């Protein structure tokens, strides 16, 4: 919201020595966030009045002229100009080099520099009104230069001085006004400044209304919960036309275009009081009757922005005895609007239900200045103030209008709010011992009525604060604190009982595993968006079990992922040309619509939220076989690092991305994950040219198997004996079976470690030679070589019987 400092000064005399920055700062620190401060004078920097002394035609362009222009103090400069209304002796607005203008009134501001146009030097620019932001004040035809001759100003006079552009505009963050319906106009902001600087606040001049006509508009509120108060008045003898300059300038300063004097007045009073108003053409109101009611299905209205809206039955409309003539609180209807021929008008000032207005504004996507204000909840009392103010102003600009009776329908009045609290509570929440006098003074400055009786407070907030914003003792804390000044609060660490924070099993293992994967295994951690889309259905995912986003931001992000792997494969595709052979991992939630979690939906909502566990997944790129075993090794490392017992990787399993090389991770016979090679057609889908292996674990399920605490194994008392063997097996024998047979053959084997696999014609092409190291030890004595050799014999025999293994010679 834009706020004019000159406008504010109509309501409060601020200390003279204050700079606009200080005022902005004070509002930021005590009330609302001021996001920017702009001085109007800056917009007209380097702009002066010039007088055209001589006009020549441009030698190289038919449409351009060379204007020798007096810019004051005897300086005459050459400016190239395409204006059609130039004449010698004309006073014009000259933008000198360094000034900021908007070319042809369009686009962004650009900074001028001395330049050459078609071979002729040009020192600045002779401006049209819309090029220097005065298009509204001085409407002009195309290529028509702003004629300042009527001002009789001396050449060289600064442009800002001619028009009195001495205002400073504060830009206030609308979000910080969400809870303050009283601040949506200059009146409210001025009241705050009066409280902050402890200066008197000057009430709005409402004058006295002399009734000059008997005309009255009939008003009927059929939906009293949606409209608590409605004021309507008929005015005749109105002349619709351009607004006076002061009105145009005020609206311009807060970013509102001038339309005509009547509409401008409604806007002016809205920016002043925060109360939206509306003007109807009386002749267009059938039966001279206003009915505030819900729309009937099928009814339509063409709004002021010239769009036809089909109304639903929840929409509140202002209707005459035939049809809707305005979307209540949101936008007027085009037909009943003010035009050049209007002579009799109806002003509306009303109090609507914020929820009703908000829903309509959202439904029809009309976030108008009016709707934004009504949805915050304006107190009904303001409707009357605004009505009296607009009549006062109308009389000021058109003394001859005839004002009729105000019809004020107001049945359900608020009871005044009374807040009871005590000194103790206020001191406890603030954290220091503020005096009752300080509290009382601050509240009174803000317009509150305060009664104190033996440290107990009874506080009545002003009516413009009491609807929603100040209703309970906590709200009083805020009022006192912000005006007292947060900069005066001294930090004070709380005194609390010492407790050691507990950590969930998931949280306490999350960082542990991330560090293992990154710093131990050398992987990169990535974080992907949680979204996916139906394009991935081509991979084989069942989209009926995925969570669908109703209002997705783009077709890329229509669903929530149920696996981390597509994201990781997309990362591989994006990086494989920049880096070779790498591993990635991600830990994050995945979402499944066909299963419920333990998270209750809470409140009055029944049931639980969908299943959304943390998954841990990774990929490796490189050469085919090697990457698979990297992935398998990663999963093994995770299980070992978490000290899981009773886990195994079992051949078989399925994943839409996998080819047949897949293992399933089981812990205590529960399936919790998988390791596999990504199938060729899936790699092609992602446009990946390397081999990729992948693994994915239900991390929440996995950590549940972690057992706390374990005992170390005592170191062996007697030395171990290492023995290497190379055994030739048929090709299809699995290492898992070799290992199993070795352990069953000998009780003294502690470890079996594979170190080489040889396949080649030396041993026959249907064979493979497996070399491994055996570690033997006996807990009770030092093993003799002969005993070891006996064990080796047993092992070789077993391998031969079970797997046709033969010692390689």
């Amino acid at each position, binding site marked *: 919201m834009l706020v004019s400092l000159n406008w504010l000064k109509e309501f409060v005399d601020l200390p003279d020595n204050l700079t606009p920055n200080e005022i902005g700062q004070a509002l930021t620190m005590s009330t609302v966030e001021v996001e920017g401060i702009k001085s109007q004078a800056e917009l007209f920097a380097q702009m002066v009045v010039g007088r055209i002394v001589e006009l020549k035609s441009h030698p190289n362009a038919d449409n351009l002229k060379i204007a020798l222009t007096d810019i004051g103090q005897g300086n005459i400069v050459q400016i190239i100009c395409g204006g059609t209304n130039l004449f010698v002796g004309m006073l014009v607005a000259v933008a000198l080099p360094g000034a900021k203008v908007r070319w042809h009134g369009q686009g962004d501001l650009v900074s001028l520099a001395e330049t050459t146009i078609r071979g002729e030097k040009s020192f600045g620019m002779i401006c049209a009104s819309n090029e220097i932001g005065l298009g509204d004040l001085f409407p002009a035809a195309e290529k028509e230069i702003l004629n300042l001759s009527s001002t009789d100003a001396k050449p060289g006079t600064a442009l800002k001085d001619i028009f009195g552009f001495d205002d400073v505009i504060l830009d206030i963050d609308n979000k910080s006004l969400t809870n303050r319906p009283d601040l949506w106009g200059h009146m409210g902001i001025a009241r705050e400044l009066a409280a902050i600087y402890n200066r008197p606040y000057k009430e709005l001049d409402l004058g006295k209304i002399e009734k000059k006509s008997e005309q009255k508009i009939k008003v009927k509120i059929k939906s009293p919960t949606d409209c608590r108060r409605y004021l309507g008045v008929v005015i005749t003898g109105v002349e619709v036309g351009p607004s006076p300059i002061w009105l145009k300038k005020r609206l311009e300063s807060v970013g509102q275009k001038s339309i005509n004097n009547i509409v401008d007045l409604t806007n002016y009073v809205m920016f002043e009081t925060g109360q939206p108003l509306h003007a109807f053409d009386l002749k267009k109101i059938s039966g001279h009757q206003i009915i505030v009611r819900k729309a009937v299905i099928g009814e339509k209205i063409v709004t002021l922005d010239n769009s036809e809206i089909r109304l639903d039955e929840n929409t509140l409309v202002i209707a005459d005895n035939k049809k809707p003539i305005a979307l209540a609180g949101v936008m007027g209807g085009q037909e009943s609007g003010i035009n050049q021929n209007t002579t009799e008008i109806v002003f509306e000032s009303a109090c609507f239900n914020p929820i009703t207005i908000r829903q309509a504004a959202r439904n029809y996507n009309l976030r108008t200045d009016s709707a934004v204000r009504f949805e915050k909840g304006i107190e009904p009392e303001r409707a009357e103030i605004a009505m009296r103010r607009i009549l006062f102003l109308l009389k000021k600009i058109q003394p001859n209008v005839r004002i009729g009776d105000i019809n004020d329908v107001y049945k359900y009045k608020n009871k005044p709010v009374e807040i009871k609290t005590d000194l103790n509570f206020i001191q406890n929440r603030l*954290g220091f011992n503020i005096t009752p006098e300080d509290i009382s003074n601050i509240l009174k400055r803000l317009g509150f009525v305060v009664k104190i009786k033996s440290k107990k407070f009874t506080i009545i907030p002003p009516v413009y604060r009491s609807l929603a914003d100040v209703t309970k003792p*906590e709200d009083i804390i805020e009022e006192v604190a912000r005006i007292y000044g947060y900069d005066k609060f001294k930090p004070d660490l709380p005194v609390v009982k010492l407790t050691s924070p507990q*950590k969930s099993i998931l949280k306490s293992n999350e960082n542990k595993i991330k560090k293992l994967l990154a710093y131990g295994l050398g992987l990169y951690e990535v974080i992907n968006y949680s979204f996916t889309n139906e394009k991935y259905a081509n991979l084989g995912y069942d989209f009926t079990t995925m969570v669908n986003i109703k209002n997705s931001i783009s077709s890329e992000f229509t669903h929530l992922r149920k696996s981390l792997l597509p994201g990781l494969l997309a990362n591989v595709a994006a990086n494989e040309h920049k880096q070779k052979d790498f591993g990635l991992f991600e830990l994050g939630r995945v979402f499944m619509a066909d299963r419920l979690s333990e*998270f209750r939906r809470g409140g009055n909502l029944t049931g639980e939220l969908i299943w959304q566990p943390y998954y841990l997944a990774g990929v490796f790129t490189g050469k085919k076989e090697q990457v698979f075993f990297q992935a398998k090794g990663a999963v093994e490392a995770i299980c070992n690092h978490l000290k899981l017992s009773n886990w195994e990787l079992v051949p078989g399993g399925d994943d839409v991305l996998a080819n047949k090389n897949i293992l399933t991770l089981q812990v205590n016979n529960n399936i919790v994950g998988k390791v596999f090679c990504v199938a060729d057609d899936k790699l092609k889908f992602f446009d990946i040219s390397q081999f990729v292996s992948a693994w994915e674990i239900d991390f929440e399920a996995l950590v549940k198997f972690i057992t706390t605490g374990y005992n170390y194994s005592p170191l062996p008392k007697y030395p171990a004996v290492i023995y290497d063997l190379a055994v030739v097996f048929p090709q299809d024998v699995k290492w898992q079976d070799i290992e199993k047979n070795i352990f069953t053959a000998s009780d003294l084997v502690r470890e079996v470690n594979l170190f080489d696999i040889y396949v080649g014609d030396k041993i026959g092409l249907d064979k493979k030679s497996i070399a491994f190291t055996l570690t033997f030890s006996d807990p009770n004595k030092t093993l003799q070589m002969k005993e070891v050799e006996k064990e080796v014999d047993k092992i070789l025999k077993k391998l031969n019987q079970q797997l046709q293994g033969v010692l390689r010679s």
Partner: protein
Amino acid sequence: MLKDDFKNLLKQVQADIKSNMTKDDWLALEKKYLGRKGELNKLMDSLKTLAVEEKREVGKLANAVKLELENFFHKQKSIFNPVDENKTFDLTLPGEKYNIGHLHPITQIQEELEEIFASMGFIVEDGPEVESEYYNFDALNIPAHHPARDMQDTFFTAEGNVLRTHTSSVQVRAMEKYGTPLRCIVPGKVFRNEATDASHDHTFYQLEGLMIDKNISITNLIAVMKELLRGIFKQEVTVRLRPGFFPFVEPGFELDIKCLICRGNGCSVCKQSGWLELLPCGLIHPNVLRAGGIDPAEWSGFAFGLGLTRLVMMRYGIEDIRLLFGNDLRFLKQF
């Protein structure tokens, strides 16, 4: 036996050592035993004659003897050439390239914060990302049709839940789970239906904090926040509190810190204001305490929200938020 011959070799060498041997004497002696036709190789040759199993055993011994002799002569020679070794290699060659991976910068800063809070007695709590409207809005004193719902553009799921718009959604869940007194933080992913640009993304990370105890005050809040910020920035930071509106706190504040780059003089990072908006916070609204089953007459507390993503960007000078979820390895490698 050959085995004994190997063992004797060591004794023979000892016997051959004389006092005052020159470098050449040592070289000659080394050649006698370790040369191509030296004593050791002679014995090695006879290994061939042994049976396979014996060969294995004696071979092992032979290797041990060889190693011992080599070490012995190497040591003796180095007495004569003490600096030789250091001169023989190029110290400027690159060191071994160990493959160390990288944790995402968000993970790193998050862990750092978790540690700071744990040291102050805060539990690290977690909550669902697909959340109910109740916990995301209603329980936080943001009823349906309240304009405050517009402050956060929300993603809705087809079955009528939302993607949490803030980690504040865990406030009431934590109150229900742990009761009072309570100190907890909730780091995590949040979602807003917003157009993406260099400083906005539809997905980002927040860290919510909550402290409930007896008589918690505004001055307590300021003190804890200052302590926290000192932990994060590893230096004393100047803070200022100003009013801010968040429906789940009353009063609500924006906490700004004096810009650490320009020290408050104004620079591009703080948009010339000298202050950085960092931490929305406030005393927990009585309605929120009630929703969590806590009596506001007996307990009070404060809540705050840290933009984790923003903190990461500040820490490393990252100017485009989209880099954080772009997962370019050239980016991730830097952390």
